[in-house]
């Protein structure tokens, strides 16, 4: 009987000692989380994500195709009854629909153009979302483009609807994106946003799977439901002018400290996203200038005090 067989036999009879060993090992690994820049943990994710990416890509495409056929079948099945109903309603609604469609199209085009002025200023990489976070308590997604496509850490990720988040890990074939709804999204470096019409600055924080919150630096006098929130460009994370979402409230708000934000991008059903390749110095530039100015002011003040 070999040593491993003996150990196996012992573990079968009394697994408590094995449990003890494994729990201690896990506690050791958990304590490693507190060591900054622990490379072994980074490699673990890098290797696993790169290894699994091709399978996930194929599986996601395969299931997506089956889903499309399935939905198509049911749509076809219901189409006869649906057609009859629609024919009777069509005559009454046609005029109204045409009028409203024209207005809506114009509105959408203007809106998209306004948002994409910022996005189009930089080159972008289009990527497909292949998986979401295994843990329902965290909000990240994995996309099928990585360092080989020119993606690097901290690059903003958007859809045509609005801001999605930023890249937090780039492996050669895939990248991990932290969504704006994650509680850690605003941590470390505050994401500063402003309302579109008036410049009320605030910090965006993840609140739940579908909502963000905006904590105002100075509370605005009045806010309306549906008011747009865009990135301010003062956080060193995102370029200015990216649409984050819209204020969600039951009515007008007077001097609110904290408001709910409904993200503009449909974060629950992400499919195609664009990673904007903004040079870090472009984003960091304004912040660094402010820091330099402040340092210079502080230096002058201390010189005066010394004199």
């Amino acid at each position, binding site marked *: 009987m070999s040593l491993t067989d003996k*150990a196996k036999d012992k573990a079968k009879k009394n697994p408590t000692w094995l449990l003890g060993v494994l729990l201690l090992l896990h506690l050791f690994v958990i304590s490693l989380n507190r060591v900054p820049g622990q490379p072994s943990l980074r490699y*673990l994710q890098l290797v696993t994500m790169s290894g699994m990416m091709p399978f996930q890509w194929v599986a996601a495409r395969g299931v997506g195709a089956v889903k499309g056929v399935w939905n198509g079948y049911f749509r076809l099945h219901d189409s006869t009854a649906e057609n009859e109903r629609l024919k009777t309603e069509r005559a009454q609604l046609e005029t109204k629909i045409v009028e409203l469609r024209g207005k809506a199209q114009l509105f959408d085009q203007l809106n998209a153009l306004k948002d994409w002025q910022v996005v189009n200023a930089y080159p972008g990489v289009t990527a497909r979302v292949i998986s979401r976070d295994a*843990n329902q308590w965290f909000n990240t997604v994995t996309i099928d483009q990585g360092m080989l496509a020119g993606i690097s850490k901290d690059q903003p990720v958007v859809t045509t609807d609005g801001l999605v988040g930023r890249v*937090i890990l780039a492996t050669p074939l895939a990248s991990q994106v932290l969504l704006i709804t994650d509680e*850690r999204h605003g941590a470390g470096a505050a994401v500063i946003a402003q309302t579109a019409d008036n410049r009320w600055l605030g910090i965006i924080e993840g609140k739940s799977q579908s909502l963000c919150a905006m904590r105002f630096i100075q509370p605005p006098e009045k806010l309306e439901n549906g008011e747009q929130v865009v990135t301010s460009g003062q956080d060193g994370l995102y370029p200015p002018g990216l649409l984050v979402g819209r204020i969600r409230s039951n009515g007008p708000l007077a001097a609110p400290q904290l408001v709910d934000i409904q993200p503009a991008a449909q974060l629950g059903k992400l499919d195609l996203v664009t990673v904007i390749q903004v040079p870090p110095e472009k984003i960091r530039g304004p912040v660094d200038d402010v820091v330099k100015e402040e340092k210079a002011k502080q230096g002058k003040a201390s010189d005066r005090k010394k004199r």
Partner: protein
Amino acid sequence: MEKESRVTTIKIAACLLVAIFAQTTLNRLLPDSLERWTGHIDWLLLIIVYACLQRDPARALFTAVFAGLAFDAFSRAATPSVAQAVGVSGFAYVLSAYVADRIVSVIVADNLLVRFATVASASVINILTRYIFYKLLKFELPVLVGGQGFAGALIFGLVTNLIVSVLLYLVLDRFFDKGSALRVRRSEARRIKARF
């Protein structure tokens, strides 16, 4: 016997791979109405409990270790610079596997009730352990899918895991050929009984 054990290990590894896919990709492809429920299913935990039902504690505990590593690798938990919590899932899974194994070793019968008891206890221990660790590591946990807090996550997790386990274990019984294994075990027991 050795070969059979190796085949079972390979089958469990294959199940873990499929579970990782289900955990990370399936939800994204389902309609919103289903997502409210499916978001709470812990596919990896269900595989671990099934490994416990095979009555090999060492294999079950190591399955829990690998499942924990995979879970953390496909989660924000392993991303440097954000907030790491590598090992928490492994810890929770190992503890859940141990409790499930103890239940299975005390109750010899393998029926739906025993399976329900093991899945339920493993689910509760898994969610509680994670919650305690995330709180200790100072994570602000968000409101979950459908707007529930921790209590909601616990109840939804328990109910969805129990429902899914019934169907999943029927499929796994076929995959692991448990029917024939049970027949062999019963015939062996009859032979031993006849000898004495």
